[in-house]
């Protein structure tokens, strides 16, 4: 079992209302110094068996065609080295 992570973010030129709303709220909460916030999605996929290049290629294809909307989003695939939990 291995975990492959796909991070999906809006392309830089695309408006990100969610990130903007967060950024605007931060100073009110007493957090200064954050000049920009972008909000995206994180997918954690549990994959059976070892993660080799062919698995990663398949995940990339999955991201390209399904997890990300490449009209407005970029994505990045990586194997999780460090567990969140």
């Amino acid at each position, binding site marked *: 079992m291995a975990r492959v992570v796909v991070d999906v973010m809006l392309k830089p030129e695309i408006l990100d*209302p*969610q990130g*903007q*709303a*967060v950024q605007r*709220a931060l100073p*009110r*909460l007493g957090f200064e110094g954050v000049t920009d916030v972008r*909000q995206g999605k994180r997918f954690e996929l549990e994959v059976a068996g070892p993660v080799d290049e062919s698995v990663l290629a398949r995940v990339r294809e999955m991201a390209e065609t399904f997890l990300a909307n490449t009209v407005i989003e970029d994505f990045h695939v990586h194997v999780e080295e460090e567990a969140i939990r």
Partner: protein
Amino acid sequence: MTTRVGVVTFPGSLDDRDAQRAVKLAGAEPVALWHGDKDLRQVDAVILPGGFSYGDYLRAGAIARFSPVMETIIEQARSGLPVLGICNGFQVLCESHLLPGALTRNDHLHFVCRDQRLRVENAATAWTSAYAAGQEITIPLKNGEGGYVADARTLDELEAEGRVVFRYLEVNPNGSRRDIAGVTNAAGNVVGLMPHPEHAVEELTGPSTDGLGFFTSVLKKLVS
């Protein structure tokens, strides 16, 4: 002296005018409260209305919870001020930890608008005394993030203490745990629910007038 019921407007509140209308139809005086003011203008009760405060962009209710008006409301709710959170208002109350649990994306992942059948499980709160325990009512439901979740211990505690105030009947519209549609705090003054009683106060525009009882309940409590 008329009873004054405050209705908060956050940026992105949508059902604030409807809540004011419902308060008026119940015979109380609606008072508009602004998210940026800490002053509650001497109201006797507060409604946090439905809508998409701050676009619901981070999590529903997450940004509104930090507004100046909420500081005062959180403080006064702890000392007994009746507070009703409807839909987005419920989300704000959970985010503020005035109510336990959280509201997550509907399990079917769609926004849903429907006339929803509910059972009033607890008729002893500040907002439900006009009903009889076990009474069934139909009021509109409309949300995208209405799935009520809490850990098992919290859920058991809510059940044991009779703090589940409303339960969905016939259809669980969003995957809420144990069909929970609304809960109260231990004191019974703070109540939150996903469905919209303020949209069921007139024959002409609602599926019923079953929602009126929320507003007459609080009036009765405040007058007595």
